[in-house]
């Protein structure tokens, strides 16, 4: 079966097709869940916010400009949902990134090393200001350009570039000195 385009799935979703919207959810769940996790730093809260984001998107599908990409629109809704939840759960939002967000605990030396690397990366990410966390995730993981990040976060492109730069420097330092890739 040929993969359906976002536009086609959006058209069907707007007509009330839950299955089509479900395929959009599956397609964009990784992006949305990573963004909510980067804002909230709490696995369960991140999933709650991600669910709320998709439910909000479902009710607001009529407002989506069919001429524009679904991803940035969905990302904006996800960020709003995460920030809204963060405001309501201010205490939790100040906690460091929990180990469960970094996956399973280490079982062998190699896994222990990898687990330690993840813990350090998680701690470094948690120490960044929210807009740097989101900017670096959008740039390094989601492949957004500085201009797109600036538009999404409501800042000039140069500021987005600077936020990504500073975040990367901190994260690279946490991963091992700033010049060597993690193994």
């Amino acid at each position, binding site marked *: 079966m040929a993969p359906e385009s976002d536009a086609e799935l959006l058209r069907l979703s707007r007509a009330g097709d839950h299955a089509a919207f479900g395929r959009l*959810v599956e397609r964009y769940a990784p992006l949305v869940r990573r963004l909510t996790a980067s804002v909230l730093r709490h696995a369960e809260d991140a999933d709650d916010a991600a669910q709320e984001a998709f439910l909000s998107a479902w009710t607001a599908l009529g407002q989506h400009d069919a001429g524009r990409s679904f991803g940035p629109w969905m990302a904006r809704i996800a960020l709003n949902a995460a920030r809204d939840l963060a405001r309501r759960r201010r205490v939790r939002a100040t906690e460091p990134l929990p180990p469960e967000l970094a996956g399973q605990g280490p079982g062998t030396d190699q896994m222990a090393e990898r687990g330690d690397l993840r813990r350090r990366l998680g701690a470094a990410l948690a120490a960044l200001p929210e807009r740097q966390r989101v900017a670096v995730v959008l740039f390094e993981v989601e492949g957004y350009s500085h201009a797109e990040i600036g538009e999404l976060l409501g800042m000039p492109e140069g500021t987005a570039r600077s936020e990504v*730069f500073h975040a990367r420097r901190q994260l*690279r330092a946490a991963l091992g000195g700033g010049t060597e890739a993690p193994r």
Partner: protein
Amino acid sequence: MTIGSPFDGSPDHELGAALRALLSPGEDAAFAARVLARLEPGSPWEALAQWARPGLAAALLLAAALGFWFTLASMPPAELAGPRSTLADAAFGSAGTIDREAMVVAAMGPGR
């Protein structure tokens, strides 16, 4: 990779992979199923939403009825009798004698 300049616009793939592994909880299909379950008619969420308003109204009615009953039950019997309002009550004074003027007013209304 060395990050030497803020103007370096190329992504750091290793850092990207590490962040992806850190932030991706996985099981996206199960997550999508949970979202869809909240959209489907007849889902527990939808049922809750449908019952929320009538349920709240019924609860308020019940609370009002219970409050009224409790107030009545806690009143002394003398207060329950209430003020005299019948023709006989108006016509007979506290001593049991006929008050004719009051009787006429009660029967015909004031101003006659």
